[in-house]
């Protein structure tokens, strides 16, 4: 089976690794600016699919299907993002005679609608956040809306049925704000998703985001995994994930896993998927949504269970039986944490920092896993999201995993662009994070209340850095480098910087 990976970056590299370990040849696809990207170098062969803009390359059905045909691929792995939750693409792959490594198109479609997914969860007897069961009709009378909202209780959320990424969402604190919020949410949803349908949901004030990974095969077996704790989010975007969650006891784990498996069984779900729950402070949990694909944060689950989720995706797609021990999937061994390294400048309000990677040395050693997607000499493009690597550490207990993360972050070198490493170095020493006292509102709250750079530089180090920078310029200008220079002179970085920054 030859596998085409309809994606790029770290997840394309991740899938290539799984394929290679299974002895399967791989085909990468690439846009113009990704010609020499890492996933292209790692794959057995590569096909060009179009220009830089994702809509003309990584989101372009026909270019990807053409590439599959040209390269004699038998299967397509969509990764996450891009076309991974696009039912029409999954269907187009199947129609083209390709194995789609993911759930059936119908399952993607059903779980892609927030209200349909909520109904599926309710049918399976799984609690959902109290709210309206179906989309609110445009013709619903104001009195009726007010009554429905009063039933749910305030504060509540207006949410787009087709929503995602925080768009088409509005918080309503009291009855007076309801109608205005409905109007703006509908209008935002209409322009973002082409669908004005919205529904109401109770707002949990300080929930944790806890999710259950699961696998299902085509023979009716569904296996849920130990939970992932994903409450560390900046503007609704996960930045740190861990497994297990400090807030989940073995008994609660068993209940959440059973609930997740019930939803998956109810819809006949196959392949890898994740049920996201909100976990309230009182220990009750509510179905939030289902992701019908591999998650960015799947490595923490792999680290504490030893199960290779991507290899299982491929096996399941081939029709194999999921003969995994359910006990292994549900029993965490130790603790794992993932930090998402983004090409962003945390000291400049997380502004994007694309550009040339002049040097790269990932962390290594015991208990460290690097899932990287870039390489030295690669120019991180502005066209796609800014995730350049995921750094995952493991420890017998959470404190060991955190200590290891601190060590690995100090070791990790990305030269030439800014990354979120300094932010994580800071977070890994925050008392509330260390104590596990956090919910989904935690990170935005503490970021709003702090100032100054994330890593403070000691006076001695600042003086040494100034001296080192001056020596470097001195050596380069002199075309020498002291007694043992090993390379010829190269352009001054003071010139490089100016040339690169001011061109265009």
């Amino acid at each position, binding site marked *: 089976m030859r596998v085409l990976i309809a994606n790029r970056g770290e997840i394309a590299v991740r899938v290539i690794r799984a394929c290679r370990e299974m002895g399967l040849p791989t085909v990468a696809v690439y846009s113009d600016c990704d010609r020499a990207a890492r996933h292209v170098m790692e794959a057995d062969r590569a096909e060009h699919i179009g220009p830089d803009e994702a809509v003309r390359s990584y989101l372009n059905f026909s270019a990807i299907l053409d590439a599959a045909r040209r390269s004699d691929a038998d299967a397509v792995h969509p990764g996450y993002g891009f076309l991974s939750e696009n039912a029409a693409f999954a269907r187009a792959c199947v129609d083209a005679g390709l194995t789609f490594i993911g759930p059936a198109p119908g399952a993607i479609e059903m779980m892609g609608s927030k209200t349909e997914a909520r109904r599926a969860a309710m049918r399976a007897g799984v609690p959902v956040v109290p709210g309206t069961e179906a989309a609110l009709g445009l013709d619903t009378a104001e009195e009726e809306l007010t009554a429905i909202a009063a039933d749910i209780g305030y504060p509540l959320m207006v949410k787009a049925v087709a929503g995602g990424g925080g768009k088409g969402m509005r918080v309503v604190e009291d009855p007076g704000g309801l109608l205005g919020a409905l109007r703006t949410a509908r209008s935002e949803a209409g322009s973002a998703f082409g669908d004005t349908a919205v529904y109401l949901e109770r707002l949990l004030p300080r929930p944790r985001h806890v999710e259950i990974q699961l696998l299902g095969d085509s023979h009716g077996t569904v296996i849920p995994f130990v939970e992932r704790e994903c409450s560390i989010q900046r503007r609704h975007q996960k930045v740190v994930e861990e497994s297990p969650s400090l807030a989940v006891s073995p008994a609660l784990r068993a209940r959440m896993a059973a609930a997740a498996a019930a939803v998956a069984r109810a819809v006949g779900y196959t392949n890898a998927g994740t049920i996201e729950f909100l976990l309230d402070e009182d220990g009750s949990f509510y179905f939030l949504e289902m992701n019908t694909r591999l998650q960015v944060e799947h490595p923490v689950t792999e680290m504490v269970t030893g199960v290779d989720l991507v290899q299982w995706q491929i096996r399941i797609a081939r029709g194999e039986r999921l003969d995994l021990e359910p006990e292994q999937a549900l029993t965490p061994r130790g603790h794992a944490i993932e930090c998402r390294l983004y090409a*962003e400048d945390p000291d*400049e309000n997380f*502004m*994007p*920092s*694309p*550009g040339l990677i*002049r*040097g790269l040395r990932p962390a290594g050693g015991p208990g460290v896993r690097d899932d990287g997607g870039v390489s030295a000499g690669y120019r991180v493009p*502005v*066209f*796609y*999201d*800014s995730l350049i690597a995921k750094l995952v550490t493991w420890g017998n207990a959470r404190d060991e995993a955190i200590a290891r993360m601190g060590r690995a972050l*100090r*070791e990790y*070198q990305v*030269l*030439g*662009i*800014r990354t979120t490493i*300094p932010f994580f170095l800071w977070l890994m020493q925050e008392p509330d994070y260390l104590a596990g006292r956090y919910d989904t509102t935690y990170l935005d709250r503490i970021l709003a209340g702090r100032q100054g*750079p994330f890593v403070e*530089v000691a*006076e*001695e*180090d*600042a*003086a*040494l*850095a*100034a*001296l*080192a*920078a*001056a*020596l*470097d*310029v*001195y*050596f380069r*200008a002199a075309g020498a*480098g*002291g*007694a*043992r*220079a*090993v*390379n010829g002179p*190269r352009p001054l*970085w*003071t010139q*490089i*910087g*100016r040339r*690169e*920054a*001011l*061109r*265009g």
Partner: protein
Amino acid sequence: MTFEVEVEGRIRTIVIEHGDNPSSFRVQIDGEPGVVDAVRAGDKSLSIFGRVTFLRNGGPEKGTLRIGAAVQVTAGPAPGEGIVHLNGRTIRAVINGRRRRAAADEGAHGPGDVVVAAPMPGRIVRVLVAPGDQVTARQGLVVVEAMKMENELRAPRAGRVKEVSVVPGASVEAGCVLAVIE
């Protein structure tokens, strides 16, 4: 050779002169003298050891820098910016930044003009001001999208918009002038 190096918001004056042997250098940090042994070791690495006095927080208290280190220095994304990697700490050092800024400010534009440049490559999503507008400090001027994120670029100080150099939909490179405030 004399350099002004800005680290963590403070400018240090560094003087470097050849010493008694090829790897020996007489150096000064803010006028305080020292001797170091330094060699380039590879494309990006320097090895430095020695002992230098320096002024704590600009003086008058003095500290002694006992150096035994291998550091990496590479170009950073900003003009004149070097990135020094030192035992897992990433430190930005801008060489002759004051002169560089002065030259930039006095270049194409009049004295007192402030140039707002794109800090990264991207696409212009919205332009929020027009030439002639009065703006306050930190007022939004232009929204640039890069890496699926929208970033609002703000006025560094109050003033009048003298020039807006971009239109919505345009692609810009890092350093591209977006607007000028006078």
